[in-house]
C-alpha cells in the first residue's frame, strides 16, 4: 500500500509510462505471437454468489479507512473439507469499527456445497467462525497428515489453525501446535521445506502496530495534496515474518535457523512456495509492499538463501522496489519455465517476471503488454489460469483502491471501487489475419468478459477453482464491506483435463506436487500450493486447457518425494484421479 512517496515518485512513474509506451511500440513491431488452430476466446463470467447462497459481508474497519488495516481486506479459499468431491468455500472476515471502538467482530464463513450447486452456511456447526480475531488470509493444507484438509487463518492478532476432525467439525489448535504468532499476520504458505513429509509453514507479517494504534488512527497523510488519507506503510515499522518447522504435527519457530530471518523487516503481504530452480526442493517467494521482494532458494536440509536481487525478482526492470500485494505463478509464455506475476499499487505496473530457468527472471511486463494494461488500478488477488481452455494461461486481477477519499477526485486516478481485470493470453490464438501487425502476448478482455467483470467494488482476495466441476475455472473474489463474488465461467471454452492427486492413507492435499500434461508435443505444468494470490488458496486440483485436443498424450505427476506417476493417452474432459504409487 505505497503512498506518500510524493509527487517525485509519480513523476518517475510517469516517465516510466512514456518509456513503457516506447518499449511497447517496439515490442509491437518485433514480437510475433505464436498461433495454432485454437478458436478465439469468448469469455463470459456471471456473479452467482447471491443465487447460490454466498452472502457473508466482509467487514472492513471504518467507512473512511482511517488505518491501513481498515482497507487490507481478507482472503478466501476453495477446499473440499468433507471430501465429497464438490468444492466448498471458506471466507475470512475482519472487524467493523465505529470511530475508535469496535462495532462488530466479523465472522468467517464456511460454505458447504450441496449436490445442486448451492451452498449452505455450516460455520457454526463446523466451529470455524474465526475465534473473534480480525482475519487476514485462508490457507488450506493437511498439516497433521491425517487425511483431512485443515485451515490456517492468519489474523491481526493470534493466528487460528482449524484442524479438521473429519466429522464436519474443526478445532483450533494454533496455541497447542505453536503457530499463533501474535501480530499483523498476512500471507502464508505451507510447504515441505526439508523433505521430511511434514508441511512447514511460512507466515508473512506486515506492520508492527497494536489494536490501540488502529482504533486511534487518524488520516494524516496528504494524498496528492488533495485529501488526507490513512498513513503508511512508509513511516511505519515493518513486522518480522516467521517460519515454523513442522515436527510431526507440532510447529517449532525456526526462522533464523532456516536462513529466513526478515532482516529488512519488509512489509510482507503475499507468499508463494514453488520449485523455482527445478531442483526438486520448494523455494519461497515473498511479495513485500514498498520493499524489495524476497526469493529464498532452498539449499537443502531446510536451509534457505535469499537471492531476490541476483535472481532479478526483487525489483522491477528499473531496479525499483514496488508496492507488491499478490502473486500468481504459471508458465505464461509457454516455454516450460514458470513465470511470476506480482500485483502492485495503483499508478504502477503489475510485474511479469519471465522465468529464465534456475530461478532467474527478467521483467517482461512491458514487452508482454501486462505493464501498460495494469498501470492504473490498485491490484491485489491474482491468478494465472486458463479460463478459456485454449492451452495458455490468462491473468485475472482483483482491483480496488485503499482510499475512499479519491472518489472526490476521480479525474486523478479513478475511483475507490474498481472493476477487475481479465487479461487474455494470445499465445494460442489463431484468428489474426494474415499480414496483421504482431501483437503483445496479453490483451485486456475485461469489457467482453460478461457482467461478472463489470462489478465495481473495492476487491481484495481472489481464488480460482472449478466449483461446479464443469471443466471451466470459476473465480471467487472478496471485496471490502461487500459480500463475495463467485464468478461462474459460462464462456465457450475448449477441451480440458483436471488432475486430482491423491495419496492413499496419507496427506489430503499433496502440496508441492507438480503435474505436467503433454499435448501435441507441448508440455504444460501446474503445481499444488497452499498459499497463493492475495491471502487466498486456489482449488488444489491442477487444471489444464487442451484447446481442440480430445486426448492428452501424457500426464506426469511428480510427487513431493520425487517419485512419479505417468499416464498415457488420457481422454480429455474428465477429472483424472492419480494415486501415488500407481
Amino acid at each position: 500500500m505505497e503512498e506518500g512517496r510524493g509527487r517525485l515518485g509519480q513523476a518517475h512513474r510517469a516517465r516510466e509510462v512514456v518509456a513503457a509506451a516506447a518499449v511497447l511500440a517496439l515490442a509491437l513491431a518485433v514480437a510475433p505471437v505464436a498461433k495454432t488452430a485454437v478458436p478465439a476466446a469468448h469469455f463470459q463470467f456471471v456473479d452467482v454468489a447471491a443465487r447460490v447462497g454466498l452472502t457473508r459481508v466482509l467487514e472492513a474497519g471504518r467507512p473512511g479507512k482511517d488505518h491501513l488495516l481498515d482497507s487490507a481486506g481478507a482472503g478466501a479459499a476453495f477446499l473440499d473439507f468433507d471430501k465429497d468431491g464438490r468444492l466448498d468455500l471458506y471466507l475470512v472476515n475482519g472487524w467493523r469499527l465505529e470511530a475508535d471502538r469496535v462495532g462488530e467482530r466479523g465472522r468467517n464463513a464456511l460454505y458447504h456445497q450441496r449436490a445442486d450447486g448451492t451452498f449452505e452456511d455450516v460455520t457454526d456447526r463446523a466451529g470455524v467462525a474465526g475465534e473473534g480475531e480480525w482475519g487476514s488470509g485462508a490457507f488450506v493444507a493437511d498439516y497433521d497428515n491425517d487425511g483431512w484438509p485443515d485451515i490456517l487463518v492468519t489474523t491481526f492478532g493470534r493466528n487460528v489453525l482449524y484442524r479438521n476432525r473429519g466429522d464436519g467439525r474443526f478445532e483450533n489448535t494454533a496455541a497447542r501446535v505453536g503457530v499463533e504468532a501474535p501480530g499483523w499476520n498476512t500471507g502464508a504458505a505451507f510447504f515441505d521445506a526439508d523433505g521430511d513429509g511434514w508441511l512447514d509453514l511460512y507466515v508473512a507479517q506486515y506492520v508492527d502496530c497494536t489494536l490501540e494504534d488502529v482504533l486511534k488512527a487518524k488520516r494524516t497523510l496528504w494524498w496528492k495534496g488533495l485529501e488526507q488519507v490513512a498513513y503508511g506503510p512508509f513511516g511505519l515499522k515493518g513486522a518480522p515474518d516467521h517460519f515454523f518447522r513442522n515436527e510431526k504435527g507440532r510447529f517449532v519457530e525456526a526462522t533464523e535457523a532456516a536462513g529466513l530471518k526478515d532482516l529488512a523487516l519488509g512489509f510482507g503481504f503475499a507468499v508463494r512456495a514453488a520449485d523455482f530452480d527445478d531442483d526438486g526442493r520448494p523455494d519461497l517467494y515473498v511479495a513485500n509492499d514498498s520493499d524489495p521482494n524476497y526469493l529464498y532458494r532452498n539449499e537443502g536440509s531446510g536451509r534457505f538463501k535469499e537471492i531476490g536481487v541476483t535472481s532479478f525478482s526483487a525489483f522491477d526492470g528499473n531496479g525499483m522496489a514496488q508496492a507488491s500485494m499478490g502473486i500468481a505463478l504459471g508458465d505464461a509464455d509457454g516455454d516450460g519455465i514458470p513465470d511470476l506475476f506480482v500485483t502492485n499499487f495503483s499508478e504502477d505496473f503489475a510485474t511479469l517476471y519471465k522465468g529464465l530457468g534456475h530461478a532467474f527472471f527478467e521483467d517482461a511486463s512491458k514487452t508482454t503488454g501486462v505493464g501498460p494494461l495494469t498501470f492504473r488500478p490498485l491490484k491485489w488477488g491474482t491468478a494465472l489460469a486458463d479460463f478459456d481452455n485454449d492451452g495458455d494461461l490468462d491473468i485475472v486481477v482483483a482491483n480496488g483502491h485503499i482510499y475512499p477519499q479519491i472518489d472526490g477526485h476521480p479525474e486523478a486516478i479513478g475511483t475507490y471501487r474498481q472493476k477487475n481485470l481479465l487479461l487474455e493470453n494470445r499465445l494460442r490464438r489463431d484468428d489474426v489475419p494474415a499480414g496483421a501487425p504482431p501483437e503483445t502476448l496479453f490483451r485486456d478482455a475485461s469489457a467482453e468478459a460478461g457482467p461478472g467483470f463489470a462489478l465495481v467494488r473495492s476487491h481484495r482476495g481472489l481464488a480460482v477453482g472449478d466449483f461446479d466441476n464443469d471443466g471451466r475455472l470459476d473465480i471467487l473474489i472478496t471485496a471490502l464491506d461487500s459480500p463475495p463474488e463467485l464468478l461462474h465461467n459460462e464462456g465457450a471454452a475448449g477441451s480440458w483435463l483436471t488432475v486430482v492427486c491423491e495419496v492413499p492413507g496419507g496427506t489430503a492435499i499433496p502440496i508441492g506436487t507438480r503435474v505436467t500434461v503433454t499435448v501435441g508435443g507441448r508440455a504444460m505444468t501446474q503445481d499444488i500450493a497452499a498459499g497463493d494470490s492475495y491471502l487466498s488458496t486456489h482449488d488444489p486440483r491442477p487444471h489444464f486447457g487442451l484447446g481442440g485436443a480430445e486426448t492428452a498424450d501424457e500426464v506426469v505427476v511428480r510427487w513431493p518425494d520425487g517419485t512419479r506417476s505417468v499416464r498415457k493417452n488420457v481422454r480429455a474432459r474428465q477429472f483424472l484421479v492419480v494415486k501415488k504409487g500407481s
Partner: protein
Amino acid sequence: MKRSAIRWTATVAGAGLAAALAITPAHAQTPPPATPREMVAAYEALADTILGANKAEVKLVHAILAATYGHAQGELARARQALKASDAAAARSAVENVAAAVAQIGTEGDNAVAGVRKRLLQGGHHANAEGERQGIYDDGYVVVTKAAKQAFLDSSKALAMLAREPKAEALDAEWKKVEAAWAKHIAPGK
C-alpha cells in the same frame, strides 16, 4: 549523534529558554529579546553534531561498500583459482558470492542495512533529499546513484547466471564492467 551530546544540548537550551521566559514581561511593548548567546552557542554545537553525523554516514556507507567490494574481489580470486583447478563446484559457489556482493554494492548493503535505512527514512532522514527530488538517488541512498545501482545490478545478474557454468574469460569480462562501474561511481573522489 551521541545521546550525551543531545542531552547536554537539550539541557542548556531548556535552561536558556526558562531564563528567557522568566525575564520577559507579560505585556512587553519592546521587540522580543535577542536569542541568548548561550542558546545560539548550544544550537551551533548541535548543528555541528548533526552535520558531522551526516558526514559520518557518508564515510560509513563508503566503508560498507569498500568492504563489500573487497569481499567480491576475494571471491573473484577464489573463483579464478577454482577454475584453474577445474573445481566446478567451488567455482560456482565463488562466482555466486561475487554476484551477491556486487548486488549488495548496487543496493548499498544487504537486507540488514536496508532495515537500518528504512528506519532512518521513517525518522525523516534523507541523505540526498535534493538528489532524490532530481531523480538521481533512490529514497535514502547515500552514495549509490540510480545509474550506479542499475550498472551493479546488471553485472550482478550476469555474474549470477554465469555461476551456473563459470568460464574464466566471461568472468573476467564481467568483472571488468564491475571495476569500471566502481571507478566511475564509487571509488574515492567520486
